[in-house]
């Protein structure tokens, strides 16, 4: 319970700091404040999806259903944070570009990412047998993840995107002032903690559900 309280206070601090302590960003103005929530959400989405793929590989190698439950929880959490990133992105887009949605390459790729995992959950719901579901879902998750680089890295490079990049590739620097960087990194840490906590709670639930299923099966 102790570190959940710390996490709560930490996140409240981040929220207050993002409005009061942090200056408005150069170029982006007041709308830039959403970056404190948007970028960490996107980061957690990528992290969770990556973990889901690692878990899927683990399942295919070892055949332990625990890996499958982990993959499922990670895919669920990834989807939640991916939706958050999409929504915060759309709100920012309204402020900066004038409309919520304009099929910028980043918006396109995040939509496809959401659709991949939506299809993943449809596939899971279509198969009643646990072992078969785990195996087919794992194969699909890996297959789908392999197409992500095409979208995330290749599409925005080939087609011009208006999305601002945090890391300036030309002079290899980080485009943020010091105060903003402090709040941003705290937010990143807070979001990662939030993810770890949600993962723990959700895993406990899935493990209990599995234990109940096993008892019924006997």
């Amino acid at each position, binding site marked *: 319970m102790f570190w959940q309280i710390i996490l709560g206070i930490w996140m409240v601090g981040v929220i207050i700091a993002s409005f009061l302590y942090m200056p408005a960003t150069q170029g982006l103005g007041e709308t830039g404040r959403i970056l404190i929530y948007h970028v960490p959400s996107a980061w957690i989405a990528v992290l969770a999806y990556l973990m889901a793929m690692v878990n899927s590989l683990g399942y*295919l190698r070892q055949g332990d259903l625990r890996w499958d439950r982990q993959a499922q929880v990670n895919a669920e959490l990834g989807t939640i944070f991916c939706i958050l990133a999409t929504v915060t992105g759309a709100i920012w887009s309204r402020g900066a570009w004038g409309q919520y949605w304009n099929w910028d390459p980043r918006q396109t790729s995040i939509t496809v990412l959401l659709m991949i995992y939506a*299809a993943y959950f449809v596939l899971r719901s279509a198969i009643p047998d646990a072992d078969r579901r785990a195996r087919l879902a794992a*194969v699909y998750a890996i297959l789908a993840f392999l*197409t992500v680089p095409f979208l995330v890295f290749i599409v925005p490079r080939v087609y011009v995107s208006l999305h601002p990049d945090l890391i300036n590739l030309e002079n290899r620097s980080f485009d943020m002032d010091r105060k903003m960087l402090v709040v941003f990194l705290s937010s990143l840490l807070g979001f990662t903690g939030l993810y770890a906590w949600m993962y723990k709670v959700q895993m406990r639930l899935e493990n209990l559900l599995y234990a109940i299923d096993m008892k019924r099966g006997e």
Partner: protein
Amino acid sequence: MIKPLRWLKQGLAIWRKDLRIEFRTRYTYSALVMFAITTLVTVSFSIGGFVTDTDITAALLWIILFFSAMAGLARTFVAEEETGTATALKMAAQPEPVLLGKYLFNVTILLSLTVLVVPLFIMMLNLSIALPLAFVAAVVLGSLGLAGASTILAAIVAKAGAKSSLMTVLAFPVLLPLLFAAISATRAALGGGLAADVTADLLMLFFYNGVALAASLLLFEYVWNE
């Protein structure tokens, strides 16, 4: 053990077997062709013969090809499960040759469909093609990619109880990068957009094909064997 030559030999045997079965009923091919022709006629009838907007024509072509592919390509594995021959096939060959054989079969079906549908599409919509070579390359690479990624998905769908709509749901997100690149390359080849972009799109199609086939070969074992 990786034995490409033996895989290819056995794969070709499975390909011949599938083609022979296909020629007995011609069910898969007729379903694909009918689907493609129906959509093509609807499109041509409703938008008329004089569309100059390459954005629309390129997208329409790939929508027709994508949904036709979805209508038929799942059959390869579903039929094996329905007739109960999957077990015999498992005993007869390693997983990789099976995938290769099915992949070659799907490629054959899809390419013979494009040979029929694409000229019809060009005629019915009165298209003039600015870069014929790039157009052919885009259509061929795109069809190869469609067949490549949907072969292993067909195996997944067959194992998942052959739910009819599952194939489209699973294939769409996986195939979207391919479709984006194919549509963009086709558009450029039809004369819209920049001709210089064609190379980038064709390269992307090429690499997508490579990744899809390699990943399918690696992962197929887990779908096929239980």
